[in-house]
């Protein structure tokens, strides 16, 4: 019996060692990013793991550098992401609710078209979007907002999966009591879907903070760094940093850390909804 408990203990120790080892491998680069943001450095490279000299100068520098107005970037991104969050959430939830709870002739074709459209790579339409916005004279933050909001109607899958799980009998009971469908939507559908609304809103809110491609294409033509969003601003910065202005690299890392912290926290908060969305989709096949 003793050998059995020994074996068990050995297995537990082995598993703990493995887990700790993996955790270190996974978290090491992240720790390195944070350390690099504190490193005193003007070579454009952080070639050591542990900084030779610590400094807060990068964080001071990134907020005071006139070449890279990070304050403007944050405000721009905040405005775009907040508006995009409000509008997209409304659109996505509406479409998901309609597709899940109401039956009408266009329902099936719409879902099939959405499926087909989703298979085209998003980059393909970027040139067209660029010209559309140029034609509308909207190569600015407003245009970027339109792009984020424009596709919101197609991102209904997770929310629809959620609505599908709410029993229909609730709607039917309300309908028998004489409620119109609008009343069912606002008084039953929406209150029941609070977690889903939070998830959809957070997804929509985070997207502008991490998107550097669309924002780059739409905002770069203005040439005015004050109009950038944070993701494109930082991305643009590191590309400049690689070329000539190498002394700003450590500032870039500091800027990244500033942005990554809130987004990371939001993501960790969202993970549960994310899992539910994926597995709900998987169950149905």
């Amino acid at each position, binding site marked *: 019996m003793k050998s059995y408990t020994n074996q*068990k203990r050995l297995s*537990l120790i082995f598993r703990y060692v493995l*887990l700790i080892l993996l*955790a270190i491998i*996974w*978290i090491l*680069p*992240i720790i390195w*990013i944070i350390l*690099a943001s504190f490193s005193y450095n003007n070579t454009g*490279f952080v070639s050591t793991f542990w900084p030779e000299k610590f400094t807060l100068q990068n964080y001071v520098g990134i907020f005071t550098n006139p070449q890279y107005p990070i304050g403007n970037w944050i405000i721009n991104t905040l405005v775009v992401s907040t508006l995009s969050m409000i509008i997209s959430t409304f*659109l996505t939830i*509406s*479409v998901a609710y*309609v597709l899940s709870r*109401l*039956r009408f002739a266009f*329902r099936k074709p*719409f879902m099939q078209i959405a*499926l087909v*459209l989703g*298979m*085209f*790579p*998003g*980059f*393909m*339409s*970027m*040139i*067209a979007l660029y*010209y*559309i916005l140029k034609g509308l004279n909207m190569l600015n933050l407003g245009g970027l907002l339109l*792009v984020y*909001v*424009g*596709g919101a*109607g197609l991102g209904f899958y997770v929310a629809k999966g959620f609505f599908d799980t709410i029993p229909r009998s609730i709607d*039917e009971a309300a309908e028998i009591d004489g409620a*119109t*469908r*609008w009343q069912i*939507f606002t008084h039953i559908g929406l209150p029941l879907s609070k977690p889903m609304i939070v998830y959809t809103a957070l997804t929509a809110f985070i997207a502008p903070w991490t998107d550097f491609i669309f924002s780059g*294409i739409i905002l770069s033509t203005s040439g005015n760094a004050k109009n950038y969003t944070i993701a494109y601003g*930082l*991305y643009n910065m590191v590309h400049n940093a690689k070329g000539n202005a190498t002394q700003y690299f450590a500032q870039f*890392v500091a800027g*990244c*850390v500033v942005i*990554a912290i809130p*987004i*990371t*926290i939001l*993501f*960790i908060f969202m993970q549960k909804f*994310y*899992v539910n969305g*994926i*597995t709900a989709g*998987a169950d149905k096949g």
Partner: protein
Amino acid sequence: MFRKKKHVAPKATYREVWTKGSIATKLSFILMGSNALANKQWVKGIALLLSEIIFIVWFIFSGISALSMLVTLGSNKSKKVVYDASQGVYVTKQPSNSVLILLFGILAIILCLAIVYLYIINLRSTRKNYILKRDGKHIPTNKEEIASLFDTRLHSTLMAVPLIGILFFTILPTVFMISMAFTNYDRQHPIAFSWTGFQAFGNVLSGDLAGTFFPVLGWTLVWAVMATATTFFFGVLLALLIESKGIKHKGFWRTIFIIVWAVPQFVSLLMMAQFLDYQGALNTILMNIGMIAHPIHFIDNQASPLVARITVIIVNMWIGIPVSMLVSTAIIQNLPTDQIEAAKIDGANAVQIFRSITFPQILFVMAPSLIQQFIGNINNFNVIFLLTGGAPMNNNYNGAGSTDLLVTWLYNLTFGQEQRYNASAVLGILIFIISAVFSLLAYRHTNAFKEG
């Protein structure tokens, strides 16, 4: 739905509506909304009438020219100096801007389709009103019509705005890009271009780009299979490790891995590229602990393609395993345990249980989302673009590096030096076909699962 058994009104053909209808009803066939106006459905009638008037005005003043120019994409193909007789001077004529002509042409087609759709709605509502009148029933008033938008026709109210968004920001650009694949829009024809049929497809599949397309396609598929398989397999193993008996603080361990996934990719991957650089921290660490004597070229331009590709797959594991772990954890927690217990009683060891019970069960549940991940990996732009940017460059390729996927190559062809817009549109269509084929296979596969 419980509403399905509705009373079906006796049908009337449009011929009957036309011959027996009132003047307003007859007028509806030409002047949209007149029947609605006659029945005092003001909002509907005015909306239909206004849209018809606006459409006709637009069609005469710009619609016709937009549609007719679509045929040639602009007659003036190159910059010319022509003699202007009225002013008596030579003037330079700029080539026609085919991009805008194409865009407005497609827009015009969409508007025409929209008005046809409205016309059909108009006819239907006219027929409905006619039938109601003929049978002596109550015709909905203006108020009731509006109220129905929030009840029986709530779907059209809620879908209207999203649909307009999809139409202009997804369908219009997609159609535009598909048509671009059939033109010669490239560096030689940057402003004015013309229809060339399947020539661009020929270039990609058998012309000067074929030497790049097939190797890149091959690597894209290898990458997608490797990326999906490694993250899935090791994600399941990691989830099992964390979920196994005796491990405490499971939430804490999970969070450590989740952090990697949660950090925005443009931060984590750009920094990873620095970390793996020739002069980067990883090489310094490895040299300090004496594992290597000289720095390794992991992902820069001097790296060997094989090393770079393996590095990319490993870095993708770093990014992808946490998500996969998260999802498999949810599945593992919901798996029926009776089979595992039965196997334990029969004396199966951990490896046997994993291989014969747990893994197949997870695979079964995850199959559809695995296919989605596979397609997602075919289109995995971020990892390649941010990490390697396609490097190391490959001299045999045209505008692509050894780690470039089809999507990143597509991006390079459009925004890089090459400026082969038509070829990138062709690539987009080919990627679509590949994705569609795999989705279709997956769909049939999962259906077979259901029946089996």
